[in-house]
């Protein structure tokens, strides 16, 4: 089951998306506040964060930057109604996994979440292997 954090200032959008994604066996947490999203991402481990680009308090790119600063391996998919090429390039440079324009096809979004989940698993495994290698080298077994 993929664990997803959905961040958007449109409350109704969050409610419907959560219901549809949960029906597809995803564990969904929602918030309308980017600051709350940063807190949640620190407390919990998510397979993917779906983030709106334009929000009050903090815009999506700023939130993305903060999320990646705290956890560089976090998979962040930007969902926006306002995708300019410039913003898209900026988002990718900041480490976004993908960028989708609203209204998005849930099938495509689900595929991207599954890909993000797989990528996260690979990264977790890679880190675990590195840790073991490090311990082995240090202990000299």
């Amino acid at each position: 089951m993929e664990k997803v954090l959905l961040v958007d200032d449109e409350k109704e959008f969050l409610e419907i998306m959560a219901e549809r994604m949960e029906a597809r066996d995803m564990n969904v947490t929602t918030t309308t506040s980017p600051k709350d999203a940063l807190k949640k991402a620190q407390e919990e481990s998510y397979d993917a964060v779906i983030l709106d680009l334009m929000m009050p308090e903090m815009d999506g790119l700023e939130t993305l930057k903060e999320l990646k600063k705290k956890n560089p391996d976090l998979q962040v998919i930007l969902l926006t109604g306002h995708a300019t090429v410039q913003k898209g390039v900026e988002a990718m440079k900041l480490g976004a996994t993908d960028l989708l324009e609203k209204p998005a096809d849930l099938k495509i979004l689900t595929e991207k979440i599954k890909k993000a989940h797989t990528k996260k698993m690979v990264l977790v495994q890679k880190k675990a292997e590195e840790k073991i290698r490090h311990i082995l080298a240090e202990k000299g077994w």
Partner: protein
Amino acid sequence: MNRQLDAEIETGLQFFGKMTASISHEIKNVMAIINESAGLLEDYSLMAEKGMPIDPERLKVVSDRVTNQIRRADSITKNLNSLAHSVDEFRKSVGIRETLELAMGLTERFADMRSVILDFHPPSDFLAVITSPFHLLNLIWQVLDFAIDASGAGKRVGLTFETGQTSVKIRFTGIEALTNEPSTVFPTAKEAALLDMLGATIHHNTKKGEINLVLPKDDRQQ
């Protein structure tokens, strides 16, 4: 083309572009909710086909959501339409109340983005002025944009107007961060050109945290 005219055209186009970009973003948000609502109905029908019972209340929630979003889209497109028609004539009689309502409607999303609430308290009297509707809207937007940024901890900008004998005073309140030397910050050259064009003036009341925009009832009687 002379430099001042270039700057005026640039200011006008920037305002128009900013408003239409914001409106298109809002319409996209509405479309996204309607799109997901349609998807949810599809999910329900698939569940029903598999023999799972669907609570009619859930269908009503979706139907209400779509109705609300259609109402929202209607208001957004009405604002877009009024903005588009504001360039039909550059001198005509316009209702101050309607112009301020339109300016508030166009600015609301920008205020939301900065977590600021806009309050409109118009008097009950009807007042029309002869002016350039587009340039007036542009000027009101510039003042609101500044006021939102300077609203300080209160995060609430008020808007109202008072009628004088030959002019109307549009009051922007709640500008907590107005300094003692506000004229160095606002109006900038951009607003000064609009003020000149409309025959209007701007006055700061730093004690009250207010900016007053004084507009002639007829721009040719200045």
